[in-house]
Structures are given as structure tokens and as C-alpha cells.
């Protein structure tokens, strides 16, 4: 057992973080929020060039030839950076939809009665007939509702990569909360010196690090029950973490200008993907009875 990142995996994670900081830093995020519904195709192609979508495609088919653990690390970074677009659908379409692997084609997919970025995608997989736009909660995720779009059994890879994005959010909101708690002073000292605030931050770390172990392990085993577990832990870490981050930021956290609400809203969007939380809980309960717990 050597359950830790290899040097190559660490380099991949760091490289992805640098790429996203360069191509989708704070300014770009701000601009994206102010022009909702616009997908940056140049960024999409840059992601394609970096191997974002072709990561798990065999080298013989022009891919990078890496596995789920590497994909999880890359999507964790996407989650951290709040990178917009139907990233997972396009990643999963690599090799099946021409141009998806290189970032030339933007692919979305119907999932659980919803479809993300339907107007901007070149290809929408699944039956999107009768899709109607809705006023999306998340300014960075345009959504259409698909009538009668009951979810088929979700692709475990889609569940896992969503969990990886949630993990990125969980880790990022913990950092943001800690930064704020160290800088913001009230009653003559940093608010992070108050236990009530410090313990909120500690709780965020506990949830994100527990989720990290679950998500990474599920990437290694690719076992659907491990993936369901990873999903529950990562959803919880992201949503509760973002809420606590908002709380630590006080009034500033309630403003549009702060980045915190974007993390919470995206985390909420992701909880609706890939079958939902109830299904994951039922799958884990069923596994107890099947004796594979």
C-alpha cells in the first residue's frame, strides 16, 4: 500500500493549478460572472491542448493514456478554480464525439432532468427534446430543464469526477475562510483567534480531508460503492464548507462581489448531478445487505 500521490501525479496537479491560475484567475472569473452564458472557446481549446479532455483516452487513440486517479486530480483543480462549462460531459465524450478530446467540440449531456450549457454546447448527449431554460441559481452554469428526463443509471465516472470537483471546492473554501479569519480583525484581534470561528474552520478541514481520502480511494478502486461513498462525503464537504466559509466572511460573504457565493452555488448545482444524494445513500445501504460493505 502506497496511498499517496506519486511525483508524476503531484506534477500533474501542480501543473493544472498553474494553468488554471494563468487562464482562469480572479479577473477572468469576475468577467465570466459579469457576462453569463458566454463560454470561452479559446480557454476550452487550451484545456484540450493541455489534455484535460483526452486524459483517459489511450495514447493509440491520440489521448494521454492516464487513469481515473489522474482525472480526479485534474477535476479537483477545476472545482477549486470554479472553472465553468460542461467539463465532465466533454471529458466523458472524448473518443466518442469527434473534437471533444481536443477541445474543438463542447459536449454537454442530459443528466437527471437537467442539462448544463445547452445553448453553448455543440453536441448534447441524451434526449434533450423539449428542454426549457430556467433561471439558473449559479451565474456560471446556464441550465435547461428537460421534461420527463428521469435519470438513467449514472455513469460512475461522472459521479466520481463530480465528487472530485466538490473536493476542490471543499479545499478552496477552507483556504478562503482561513485567509479571511487571519486578516479580518474585530474586538482588536483576528476573528480566527476566537474559538467559535477557529472551530468552524477546523471542521471544514476535517470534512475536506476525509472526503479527499474517499475520493482518491474510489479513483483507485473504481468500485461503484466506493464512488457512491466518495460522492456523499465530497458533497457534504463542499456544501457545508461553502456555507461555513460564507458564515466566517460575515456580511462580506453575503455580497455578490465576494467569491464565496459562487462556490456555494456551484456546489449546490453539483449535488443534483448523477442520480442525486438519495440514490447514493440507497446504494450504500444495499451494499451493507449484499455483504460487500
Amino acid at each position, binding site marked *: *500500500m502506497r496511498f499517496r500521490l506519486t511525483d508524476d501525479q503531484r506534477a500533474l496537479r501542480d501543473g493544472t493549478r498553474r494553468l488554471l491560475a494563468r487562464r482562469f484567475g480572479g479577473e477572468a472569473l469576475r468577467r465570466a460572472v459579469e457576462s453569463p452564458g458566454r463560454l470561452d472557446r479559446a480557454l476550452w481549446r487550451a484545456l484540450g491542448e493541455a489534455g484535460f479532455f483526452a486524459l483517459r483516452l489511450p495514447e493509440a487513440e491520440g489521448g494521454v493514456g492516464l487513469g481515473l486517479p489522474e482525472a480526479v486530480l485534474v477535476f479537483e483543480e477545476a472545482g477549486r478554480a470554479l472553472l465553468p462549462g460542461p467539463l465532465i460531459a466533454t471529458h466523458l465524450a472524448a473518443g466518442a464525439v469527434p473534437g471533444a478530446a481536443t477541445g474543438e467540440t463542447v459536449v454537454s449531456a442530459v443528466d437527471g432532468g437537467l442539462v448544463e450549457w445547452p445553448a453553448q454546447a455543440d453536441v448534447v448527449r441524451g434526449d434533450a427534446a423539449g428542454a426549457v431554460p430556467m433561471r439558473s441559481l449559479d451565474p456560471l452554469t446556464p441550465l435547461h430543464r428537460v421534461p420527463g428526463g428521469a435519470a438513467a443509471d449514472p455513469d460512475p465516472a461522472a459521479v466520481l469526477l463530480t465528487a472530485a470537483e466538490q473536493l476542490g471546492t471543499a479545499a478552496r473554501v477552507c483556504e478562503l475562510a482561513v485567509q479571511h479569519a487571519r486578516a479580518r480583525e474585530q474586538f482588536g484581534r483576528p476573528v480566527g483567534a476566537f474559538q467559535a470561528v*477557529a*472551530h468552524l474552520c477546523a471542521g471544514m478541514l476535517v470534512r475536506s480531508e476525509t472526503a479527499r481520502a474517499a475520493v482518491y480511494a474510489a479513483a483507485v478502486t473504481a468500485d461503484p460503492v466506493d464512488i457512491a461513498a466518495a460522492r456523499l462525503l465530497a458533497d457534504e464537504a463542499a456544501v457545508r464548507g461553502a456555507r461555513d466559509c460564507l458564515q466566517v466572511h460575515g456580511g462580506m460573504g453575503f455580497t455578490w462581489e465576494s467569491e464565496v457565493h459562487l462556490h456555494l452555488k456551484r456546489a449546490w448545482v453539483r449535488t443534483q448531478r448523477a442520480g442525486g444524494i438519495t440514490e447514493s445513500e440507497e446504494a450504500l445501504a444495499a451494499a451493507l445487505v449484499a455483504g460487500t460493505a
Partner: protein
Amino acid sequence: MDLSDTPEEEEFRARLREWLAKTLPGLPAEPSPDDWPGRRSYDLGWQRRLHDAGYADVHWDASPAIRLVFLEETEKAGAPYVGASFVGLLHAGPTIAAEGTDEQRARWLPPILRGEEVWCQGFSEPDAGSDLAALRTRAWRDGDDYVVTGSKIWTSHAEVADWCELLVRTDPDAPRHRGITWLAMPMDAPGITVRPLRTLAGSAEFAEVFLDEVRVPAENRVGDENDGWRVTMVTLSFERGTAFAGEVVACRRVLGELAVEARGNGRWDDPALRRRLGRLNAEFRALWRLTQWNVSAAQASGGVPGVGGSVFKLRYSHARQELYDAAAEVLGAGCLDLDRPWMLDRLSSLSYTIAAGTSQIQHSIIAERILGLPKGR
């Protein structure tokens, strides 16, 4: 990231499984929880068997990953717990190994490994719990002895211990952490009174230990006088992230038993209960992965535990309480019957968020040492 056994781990696991299958059927019957002499001889007998089979020092010399295999396999096979050997194997022994003289190592370590002597821990005091450095048990030097007066609390196995690893204050004028000394106190010395402490679960798992001018030879001091705090901290994290590894394996087994019970009594038809158990399944799967993650980090850093210990402890102690609360829901009104399975464990689980650093202290440790938030009070 690799979760599979290395060839060395695989070989160790196979050999251990074979030995456990051969050895466990020959063990004597487990003593009743109130039979302290019986528990002492049962626990030491198990350690003796481990010693004779070459597993005695798995807690000391084996790599963290091998140790995890040991804990996983012994738990799965239903082998005895470390029990009365806990302090000797997991704290006093490693402390002596790290900080003792050659003579001290030769005197105290072999009997621990061979399952011949029991150690207990005299750290906490009525007024020094989470704030251990507030301890007030005094020791004066008198010729070749220290003379110790004070009281200790939460001491497990005090009734049957041969030795006590004792923290005493030797310089009350020094800053709190600099006036403490580590002594090995023979438990048969005159002046020691042990009073069992009954817990809310009804059993006497702990004791209070009163010390009235107890003479401890100065040669029993490990490390320098007034350097006891550092001596103790060297090994406080000795378990390297595996402290509760066996228990996580056991909790996952309990969860499976709860599902079977719920199917049998019809409560499984309640989706809210099913989902609660499903969530606990996710929780304990994650805790096992977190254990593997922490152990791998310790392995990579040459045995030094990472910061993951507090994260794990906080999450696990809470999850254990949740598990037994779910057990109560499965049993319905039966949860009030202490003869039903799990209900005594439910009571003991209440100590988990308190013992070995309360959850509140763990939160503060994480906030200050991992997240770098300013120290607060």
C-alpha cells in the same frame, strides 16, 4: 496512489492469517470484564503468544503499513485486543526505548514484549485534564529517591499494573512545561492507594490513584529532571495514525450486523433508516481510507505521523457515536435493554469525544497547528 499490498505486506498478511487461524481456537475463554486479574493474565497470555510467534514488536519496529496489516487482520480474525499491554506497548515502552539509558531499556523493555509486566499511565489529574501541563503531583528529591505526593485519575489497569509511567512536578517555580519529570513508579510501593472509578456504563474501567509520600528510586527517572514534558511528547504520537485502525474494521462489521438486524425486524423498510445506515457505510469506508492515507504519509516520512491524526480522531469519535445511535434506532424500544447487543458499546462510545483530547481541543489543535490560525483562548 496504490492500495494493493506490496510483496512484503502480502507475505506478512498471509503468514499472519495462517498463524491466527491456527492459534485463536486454542485461546482460553475470555474473562468477564470485571475480573481484573483474569483480564491481566488473558491479555499478557496473548502478548506472550505474539512474542513467541515473532509478532511482539509489531508496534515498535514494523513499518506503519505492516502495522496496519497486523491491526486489520487481527481484528478481522476476532483476535484479542492489546488490553492490559496497551500502555507498555504503545506509550511507556516506546518512551523508554527513545529516551531511556541502556540499563533502563534492558530492565523494562523485554518484560513488556514477553507479556510479563503491565504498565499504567499516571498523567491526568483531577485538575489537569485537557490542560495536562497544569499537573500538580509533587516530587521532592530525598537522597537516592524521589518522594511523590498527589493524585492521578483516569488510570486504566491500575489495579493490576506492575509499573506506572508517572508525570510529576519537580520544580514548581519553573514555567509549567519545564518543571515536570517522568518516573517509572513500581505499583507495589508503599503509599499508593488505587480506588476504582465507576463509569456511566457501570463498569470500573478506570481508577483514581492516590500517592502519599511514595518513594521512587531516582534511577527510575527517564530523561533529565524537569525534562519530562519533552520526554513524554516524543512518543505521544507514536501510534502513527493507526490508533483506531482495528476499531474502524470492527465498526464496519457492526454496521453489517445492524443491516441484518434491521432486515429481520422490519425496520429496513423505513427509507430514512436505510439512508442513515447507507451514510454511515460511506463514513466508515472513508475513515478506513483516511487511515490508509495517514499511514502512507507516516510511511513516506519515515514513521513520523502527519497532521492527519487529529483530523481522524475528531471524525472517528463522532462517527462511532453516530453508529451506536443508529443501532439504537434499529433496536427501537430494545435500545433501553443493556442486554441487547451494542447498547453497552453505545454507552462507552460517549467517552470517545472526551478521552485522549476532547473534540474541542482537537478542533483547536487543527485550527492552530494545521491551519495556522492565531492562538486563542
